[in-house]
Each structure stands twice: as C-alpha cells, then as structure tokens.
C-alpha cells in the first residue's frame, strides 16, 4: 500500500498575512482574501468553510501557486514557496511545489484513459521508475480508489463519483506533501456525495497526506475536517475543531453559519457574570464575548438545547407552536414567545405537539454542552 509512513508524509502548511486581489475588467481591484493567517499541522485534514465568494477557493489556490497573492507568504514543510510585500518577491512555480489538487469537475484529461491520466501524474518521477514500476504504481493507485479494471476506460465513460476517485488517484500519484480539494463533491448528487466523501476521507487518512479542502457545506466540513477555518468576506473568522466552532463560535455569524442558532436576549447575573436570565430560564455562560460594562447580552441557544414542556415552570414563559417539521428521528418546531420572538426547537419524537399548542420552552441544562456563548446585543447581524 501507499500508506507506508516513510514514503508518504504530509507537510505542515503555513499562511502568513496572505492577501489575494483580482483586477476586474473595469480596472478596479477586488480583494478576495484579506491578510489571512493559517497554520495547518502536518498530516491533518483542514476544511475551508464559507459562503460562495468568501475567498476560500482563492486561499486554496494561493497554496497551490495558481493564485499569486498580493501580500503575505506561504510555506510548505517549512520552506517558503511564495512571499510578497516586504523584501524580495519569492515564487515557486506550481509544478515545483509538490502539491496535489482535485478540482470540482475532476479535471481529468478527456483525451487520455484512466491509466494514462494517472501515469501523467507519475511523469515527474518517470525517469526514476521502470516501465513495470510505473504500471505497478498505477495498479496500486487504482486499488486504493477501488477502481481495479477501469484502467482502459476514457473519463467520459465513468460516473461522476468514479471520475472524482480517478482524479484523487492521479493527484496522489506523485506523492504530494499536501493535497488540496476544491469542492470535490459538489458536482455529485446527494447520496453519492456521502459515499464518495467517506471513501476519500478513508484514503487520505490511510495515506497520511496533509489535506486542505474547500466546501460551502457545513456538514461536509464537520464530518471530514480535523479543524475547520470559517471564512467570510475574505477573512478567516475562526479556526478550530468542529466542536469548538459549534459550542463556542467567535461571532454570531459563525454561530449561525455552522448550525441553526437561536439568539435570546438575557441579563447577566452571578458573581463572575457566568449566568444569564432569559425568557427560557437561566443559562450558564461559558464564553462571554461581550462588553464587560453592559449586562444585556444575546445568548446563543441551539435548537436541541430548547426543551418543550406542557407545564409551566417558575422562570419560563408560554409560547405557541407555529410550525411542525417531522423528521422521524426528531422533530423541529418553531415556537413563538409572547414578545414575538420565534425560537427553533429540536426534540426527540417521543413527545409530539401540534400547531397551535401552548408550550413552555426552557433551556436544557442537564446534558453536556449545557453552557452557551453570549454576545453583545448590538451584534444584530445574526
């Protein structure tokens, strides 16, 4: 197998103050990435997550050398491959960076067979390898992506999922230190996407290559990524593990982007300001990202942290069920509080409510993660 650690070890990637700008036809310059810093550990899988146009693909392409940053530096495995701005411009061409990339469309060469596509990736080492070694490696790679016997097929005779697996095999052929994936699953339909992405995850973990992938799908980022960089408007808003992002988002925007978020108004109480009184009861605050002089906060409450009851308790208000979405394993409700605030709640389907029912929503405080983040009230953009 290719996974022998001595032959195939990923490299750390570090980005310092990377900016990417494009010139438009009218001569203006549009900033795609704005002074981004990112340190990626060797052998880890990192997702760049964000809405379209946030600069995630530009950042990925800057690592590959397909984009020429206007400022900042990129290093791979400790060696600087691009640096701009202060001092002399340093630039390593994309073909010299030992970086593999899988494109959204696979980018298989349509005039070459599957085998020829993979051999293309072995070009750089073909001098060192004999003909039999080259074909042995192709077989190994086809094995790795589970496409034995497809070597003589042309790309357009393969399904979308198969094409992406060939693209992966081709990009791994020259044993890159870093593998970049640009929305590699977005062209596939839903059921296939889940399957192919599980397979890709298995392969890159087996191989041990440092992997950076771009996605706009939060599920994908969380399922595949060891760490996720959430980007918006050219900036990296937060870089952390999926759990950190979900439990302790840096901004209300990140909170809303990585999952469904309710924000309820509360008043901070307690000695260290670790509690907030809200219409759905007292919430423990773990991350207080607010102005210390103000006691008014907005508290992040995930839908699964909202408990619905038929009976009132001391510190909760009555609310009306507005919508019911039944998913089988759970049910999502929208409930409206007396002041008009609408909260989303997800509960197990053991107890069902109907539209119009009066319920008493409360903050679920008996499970892991029963704490929350609080933000300044003027963060109204969530």
């Amino acid at each position, binding site marked *: 197998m290719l996974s022998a650690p001595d032959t195939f070890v990923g490299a750390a990637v570090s980005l310092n103050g990377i900016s990417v700008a*494009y010139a438009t*036809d009218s001569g203006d310059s549009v900033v795609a990435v704005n002074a981004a810093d990112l340190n990626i550990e060797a052998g880890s899988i990192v997702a760049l997550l964000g809405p379209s146009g946030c600069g995630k*693909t530009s950042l990925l392409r800057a690592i*590959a*050398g*397909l*984009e020429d940053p206007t400022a900042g530096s990129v290093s791979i495995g400790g060696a600087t491959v691009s640096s701009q701005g202060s001092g002399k411009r340093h630039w390593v*061409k*994309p*073909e010299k*960076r030992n*970086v*593999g*990339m899988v*494109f*959204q*469309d696979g*980018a298989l*060469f*349509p*005039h070459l067979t599957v085998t020829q596509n993979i051999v*293309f*990736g072995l*070009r*750089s080492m073909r001098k060192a390898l004999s003909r039999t070694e080259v074909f042995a490696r192709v077989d190994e790679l086809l094995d790795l992506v589970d496409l034995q016997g497809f070597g003589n097929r042309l790309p*357009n005779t393969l399904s979308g999922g198969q094409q992406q697996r060939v*693209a992966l095999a*081709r*990009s791994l*052929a*020259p044993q890159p230190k870093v593998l970049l994936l640009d929305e590699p699953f977005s062209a596939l339909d839903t059921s296939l996407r889940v399957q192919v992405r599980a397979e890709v995850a298995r392969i890159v973990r087996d191989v041990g290559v440092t992997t950076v992938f771009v996605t706009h799908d939060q599920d994908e980022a969380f399922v595949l990524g060891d760490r996720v960089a959430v980007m918006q408007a050219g900036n990296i808003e937060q870089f952390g593990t999926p759990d950190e992002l979900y439990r302790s988002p840096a901004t209300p925007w990140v909170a809303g982007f990585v999952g469904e978020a309710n924000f309820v108004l509360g008043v901070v109480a307690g000695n260290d300001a670790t509690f907030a009184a809200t219409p759905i009861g007292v919430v423990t605050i773990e991350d207080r990202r607010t102005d210390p002089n103000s006691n008014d906060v907005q508290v992040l409450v995930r839908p699964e942290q909202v408990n619905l009851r038929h009976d009132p308790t001391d510190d909760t208000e009555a609310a009306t069920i507005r919508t019911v979405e039944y998913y089988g394993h759970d049910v999502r409700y929208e409930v409206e509080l007396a002041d008009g605030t609408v909260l989303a709640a997800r509960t197990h389907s053991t107890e069902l409510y109907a539209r119009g029912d009066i319920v008493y929503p409360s903050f679920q405080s008996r499970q892991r993660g029963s704490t929350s983040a609080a933000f300044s009230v003027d963060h109204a953009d969530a």
Partner: protein
Amino acid sequence: MVDFHLDVAEAAPNDERSKRRVTSGARRSSWVTPSRLLGLLIGAGFAGPAGFVVWRTVRLGGDLANVAKEVPGPLWRTVQLSVLVSVSAAIVGTALAWLVTRTDLRGQRFWRIALVLPLVLPSFVGAAAFIAGLAPNGIIHDALSAIGITPPRRFRGLGAAWLVLTAFTYPYVYLPVAARLIALRSSLEESARLLGLSSTATFFHVTLPQLRPAVFGGSLLVFLYTLSEFGAVQLLGFDTLTRVIFATRQTNRALSFASATVVLILALAVVALERTQRGSSRPDDRSTAAVRRSRLGWRQTPALAGCSLVLLVGLVIPIASLATWAQRGIAGGRVSINDLMQPAISTATVAVIAAVLAVAVVMPIAIATTRRPHRSSDIAAVSVIVGFAIPGLVIALALAVFTLNTPVLKGLYQTSALLIIAYVIHFGSQALASTESAVRAIPHALRESSRLLESNPIRRFFQVDFALMRPGLVAGGGLVMLSTLKELPATLLLSPIGFSTLTTEIWSSYEEGFYAETGAASLVLVAVSATLTWFLVLRRSEVVRG
C-alpha cells in the same frame, strides 16, 4: 463536420444530443415519408452540381493525354498553396487565440476584436490592394521609398499568394480556437501544472489536444477556401487549377470538367480526412473559475509586435492602400460614389435573397436532423456540406453547362435567378449549422405545451417556433449574406450581361487598371461586409464579449 459556427453563440443544450441517441430506434423506420423525401430531394439539389461534373467528365473523357499534360502542374501548385496556407493559418490563428485568451497581453480586449477583422476583406481585394500599394504612387511603394528601401518590383508567385491568403484566412482558425479556449476548463491546465509540467509542456500535452477539433475544423475551412481561390491567385500570377477550369471552360470543356473533378475529389477527400482525424472531444463545460493567465514578461513586446504585424498586413495596409487610391480618384473627379450605387444595390439585393432562400431551403433538413433523425436526414445534411466543399467556380460551371444543355432550363441561363441558386448551393451549409441550433433552441416540452394552447399550426409556427428561432436564423442567413458579398468566380461566370455587383466591379476595374475605382468599390464592399460581420458574427461571439 464543417463547422460554420465559428463561435456564434450556440444556445443548444447538450442533452439534445443524448436524446438523439435515445430516439435512434426511429432510424430504422421507413424512408418513404413526405418529409424524408423532401429532405432527400433538397440534398440532391445540393449534391447535384458535383454529380453533374463527375458525370460530364466521364462522358466527355477520352482526352486523357491532354489532361495528363495540363493538369499536374496546376494541381501541384494548388495542393502546395492549400497545404502551406492551411498550416500557416493554423499556426498564426492558434498562436493569436492563445495570446488573447491565456496571457496577460496588453490591450487584450482591443486585440480580440481587431484580429477578427481581416475576415471582412475578400482575399482578391486584399491581393489587389497589395499590388496597387506596391505600384508607383502606391502607399507601400512610397512608404518604403521614404525610408530608403527599394520597393520590390513584382509581388507575385507562391510566396505572395501564401502571404496574402494566410493574412486573410487565419481568422477562420483564430475564431473557433479562441472560442474553444474560452470554454475550456482551466482546471485541466492547472492540474497539469500541479502534476509537474511546465507551462510550455502543458500547452503541448494538455491544451493543444483539447484544441485539436477547433484547429482542424478551422484549417479545413482555410484549405477549402484556398482550394477554390480564384481571384487572388490570378492577380498574383500563381497558376492553379481554378485558372485552368475558368480559362478552358469554353475552349476545352473536357479539360475544364476534368480539372473540376480533380478539385472536387481533393475537396471531398480532405473533408473526409478531417472527419477521421479531428477527434471526438467537444466542449463539454464552460470554465467557471477565473482563468490563470501566463505572464508574458519580456515576451510582451515581441507578442505585441507579432499582433501588430498581423493586423498591419491583414487590415491596415490593404485598407490604407485602397483608401489612398479611392481618395485620389474622388478628388480627381474620376470616381463618383454614385456610380457605385447600382452595383451596391444589386449586391445587397442578391445577397439578401440568397440568404433568405438558403435558410428556407435548409430548414426542412435542420428540422429532420434535430427532431426526427434518420439515415435520410444524415445523407441530406452531408449533401449540403458537399455543396460548400466544392469551389463556387465548379458549381457555377456545372450550373451554366447544365442549363445550357437542358432545353427546358435554357431560359435560366444568364439570369440572376441562376446566380442566386449557385449561391444557395455553395453557401447553404453555412446556414445549416445555425438553423439546426435554432431548431434545437425550442425544447420539446415547449412545442407540446404550445400545441395545447394554440390549435392553429400556422399561427403556432409564427408565434412560437419562428419567434424563438429568429436569432439563429438571422445568424445563419447572415453568414450566407457575408459570403455572397465576397464571392467572385461564380459571380463572374453567372452574372447576367449588364448586371454588376461590387465584386465584379472591383474585378473589372482592376483588370482595366483603374486602381481608383477598385479602391472605392472595395471600400464600399468592406464597409458593408464589416457592418454585417459585426452584427452577425462578432457581436454574438464569446471571443469578443468574453
């Protein structure tokens, strides 16, 4: 096959092709339906002249000794010139297309448009412009003398023909290749770079194989154009087969027809060869990401110089040369624009009628090939293309001899109706591709729903079908019109006595040595054809808009 789209935006969805395969069961059904018979009949009309030439040659044959003596020399020159021009046009066209789409060439938007413009000059007008420019008092002669270079005494022969034809035909390669480059996913080239190839190696191993169909298709057009070239090679004193056909058409009909057959076989052989060699890869995707452009660096200056040179030779010098002669003529009162009104009006009238007729005639075939494909419609479509592949001169010769020898049709000879028929046969295939995509632009579901809403089929056709097809039909008809404007040999051969078009006017004034008249008439022609090119080809083109 011969792709006349150049790159006029084709809205046809790709899935129509796969649908065609699904419905192929229908192909096995009967040949004898009214629409299929109509299609075959139209096809026969297009292939008719070719068949007539071969049949006539066989009947007139027997003078093989004469053919063996007269044909090989011109044939060799024809082949030589056609191959040289196709190759040089392919190289120039591809290089320019790459420069304007894949590099940081300065003034890219300007070059993209400007480099298409030599298309507006008929090559014989270009040749005349160069000769007139090099004559004493000509603009090139004076310019060269001014900087102390002795102007060349003569501008003729293979080298001159090669230069002139390349300068005016490379856009046939440039346009489809640039369009293909714009549509080509840049991820292919980027993948190659990341797999370790330099930018040069990437061009040859990845980009060029993707461009092959476009380069081959464009070069085929150039080859056929050069093969049927008559005016420019005549002016430049390069003796090719078309001269033999034209010169011997009355004195030695057997030789004339035998030469025509040779040209015809050559044309069809090259079309067939191109079909087997072009490869099957068609544009499958539009590139979405911004294309990474190669930095030209120090090559910026040579690249700009190259583009300027091409534009100078293909547009600026000929136009300037024609303009100086025209201006002198008008200033000296020797040329009056009013004299050109009549030929201009005749040209426009004939061209418009030919265009409308061509679209109408190929419409049944276009409908059949896109909606009810059958072997009969394939045959009909190929016949239409045969009409383009053979030179206009050969079609004109066949039509002239055919009508003269057929008592019922004798009245057609020397009428503009016969001239229009020749145009339709020769240029009909230029309307076919656009008409096909116009038909494809009407989805099946739309036709079904319109059927439920409007029961009158005629009203339905005009309110729905025609309205949706109009842009495609205008584009197709426009290409026919443009070609008709620039056509010379068929026009010379078939024009009724006293009927003159701009091309015949240019030709006869040049032959009589009136450069001033040549210049004025050419400028009018260029103005008309430039306007049409802009509206029908360029404005809709990805190459210009992109």
